[in-house]
């Protein structure tokens, strides 16, 4: 089995803080892969380094057999990215943004327009396609970002928190598109801290905490004997059984003060 992504000895420090502390990871191709972990675990930093948007302090990243830093031509054409916390060109309309993104990637104009129209349709954005992205809601932004990431039909798709702040209807739409995409043999790598979602979507997971990979493998393997991924995850990051209620004895009961 070929691997979609191969990461070796990846490190990143920001000043004193170590964001990613030596990650080795091999992600299988053709799977729906979830990168899970609490806030601040280093998921975004890892995905940024894997996609070439952030230079690692140390380590190497290969995507479908090509080194991200030595062979950007091969890698950038084969991946689609939806980053978290970075803007889009928001003063373009949704349709213009797709047209811009597709043409920058060197696709012929007519093909870009055809694909853009279909993506806008499927993602339920056709009604807002002439509105500026700056006026879009969070869910609409995620969807237009996803459309831009899919437009050039990449082999591997990296999505950072694609469901964060997205309403259930949009989430279902995004899900449908991603499921169809992986069914064709493409790979999706996405980060999330919503375990139920990861459990229902992914067939392969990697658990991150404090800059390290705590567990990785097929979903059933990582879940082990635990009743749910949520429980397995809490045990892995060492947060299971922490009781938050004992000090808040005044809380509840209907008194106003």
């Amino acid at each position, binding site marked *: 089995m070929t691997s979609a992504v191969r990461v070796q000895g990846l490190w990143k420090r920001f000043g004193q803080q170590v964001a990613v502390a030596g990650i080795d990871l091999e992600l299988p191709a053709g799977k729906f892969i979830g990168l899970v972990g609490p806030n601040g675990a280093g998921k975004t930093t890892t995905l940024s380094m894997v996609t070439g*948007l952030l230079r690692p302090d140390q380590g190497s990243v290969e995507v479908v057999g090509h080194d991200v830093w030595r062979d950007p031509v091969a890698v950038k054409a084969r991946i689609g990215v939806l980053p978290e916390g970075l803007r889009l060109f928001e003063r373009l309309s949704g349709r213009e943004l797709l047209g811009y993104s597709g043409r920058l990637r060197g696709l012929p104009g007519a093909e870009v327009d055809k694909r853009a129209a279909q993506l806008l349709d499927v993602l339920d954005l056709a009604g807002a396609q002439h509105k500026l992205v700056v006026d879009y809601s969070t869910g609409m932004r995620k969807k237009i970002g996803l459309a831009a990431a899919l437009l050039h039909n990449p082999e591997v798709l990296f999505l950072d928190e694609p469901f964060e702040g997205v309403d259930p209807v949009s989430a279902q739409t995004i899900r449908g598109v991603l499921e169809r995409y992986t069914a064709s043999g493409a790979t999706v790598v996405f980060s999330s801290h919503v375990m139920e979602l990861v459990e229902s979507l992914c067939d392969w997971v990697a658990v991150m905490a404090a800059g390290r990979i705590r567990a990785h493998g097929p979903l059933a393997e990582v879940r082990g004997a635990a009743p749910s991924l949520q429980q397995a995850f809490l045990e892995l990051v060492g947060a299971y059984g922490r009781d938050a209620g004992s000090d808040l004895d005044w809380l509840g009961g209907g008194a106003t003060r």
Partner: protein
Amino acid sequence: MSAGVTGVTSVIVRLKLSLLRNGLRQSTGRAVAYIASAVAVLLVSVLQLIGLIALRGHAHAASVVVLLVAVLAVGWAVMPLFFPGGDETLDPTRLVMLPLRPRPLVRALLVSSLVGIGPVFTLCMLTGSVISVAHGGTAYGFGVVGIVLALLVCMALARTVATANIRLLTSRKGRDLAVLSGLVVAIGAQVVNFGAQRLGSGGLAQLDGPAEVLKWVPPGSAIAAADSASEGSYGIAVLQLALSVAALVVLIAVWSRHLTRLMTAPDGSTLQAASEPAARRRTSTGLARLLPAGRTGTVMERSLRYVWRDPKTKAAWVTSLAIGLIVPVFNALQGTGSIYFACFAAGMLGVQMYNQFGQDTSAFWMVAMTISSTRDAYVELRARALALLVITLPYATLVTVLTTALIDDWPKLPEVLGVSFALLGAMLATGAWTSARFPYSIPQEGYKNVAPGQSGLAFVSILGGMVAGALLCAPVIALTIWVNVSAGGDDWSWLLLPVGAAYGAAITVAGLRLAAPRTARRLPEILLAVSKG
């Protein structure tokens, strides 16, 4: 419930102090900037205080003072519209979840308004004004009341305007408007400059007319009361104070009503946005058909759209276009200018090439994802330069022709155009290179053009770039000088046009060629640098 009332006031005042303190704590750069501006404002306050005291006894002192207070009041009224980010307590919707009654809230907000540099400046100015017009103990008595009233009127005015426009200020369109504040300042400076020149020629007596009216308009009337009292017209002084009191009462009533409505009515702004009919169809065909195909046309189209649609970019462009026109043409009109001032247009517009990627903000990642070779980076930068030239070339030519027509020195036109084009080329070349070497973030909110902590970088980039641009342009300038001083040079000075244009084009290409590999190599570093806004 007076204890509760003072409670709210002290809480809000402490909130304001905490906001100030935390703002300073965020970064040392910000703290330094704040302290520097505070020192500057205090210095100006002291200077104007001395100036106003020096004015004491001058025949037109009262007119000057009344006008100053009126300008100050206008300043307070306009400020919240353009600098809404400056004071978070100006936005009462942040307090909407707290169980507060309007009356104590109004009092608390009014008192908290008095905390800050602005009120201190205002207080100094009002004090100076009273000192310059008041003669005698009674007049000072009126003056002290007048100062307090005028200060409160200014604060209430700012709060009322802010509250009445809060929906505008918190909406996207409103924030877009705020970004244009720099323009208002720039054009305002021109108006002040023009006014000062007129005053210089006409004398202070010109002020008496407007002052005659303004001394009845609050808050000017509160200060004018001190002058009236000095002349013994106590009745008039009392009336002027009463007018200010009335204005204060009305302002507070209006403010209070808006505040109540704001705090109790639901915010319908998102509902509106959702039901808003799809915006008019934005077609790309018209613009796109004229542009070359491939990356070049795509990038040019986006750049040109951003000039119009992105408020920051638009403000920068309008400022450059305006100053590029005003400086040569106004100077020519006043007969003080040289025809070579026309090069100003090219220089001002060339500045837009600087920090290209900072103008993208963190959306630069979309560009970075599609640049995988030096060639890609070169085409990207060249397209941006071309987009700039689409506007700049005709504009610089137009300004040069206009200036030449005003000065009526047509034989000089070719050489001035030549120098303009060479300068433009130098600016594009250095702009492209510094865009790759010294990128910095442009915050999208507010009026600042540099993210905190990067002003040194921006300074190096722009100033260093300009010096380098001037040096690059030096051969053509030297040639121009030589042609002008040498005997019979006028006969072939027209040659400077093709020479300047060719030179400009050549160094632009060279600059782009130098910048491209650096851009391609440093994509993650550039992204990091431009994502701080």
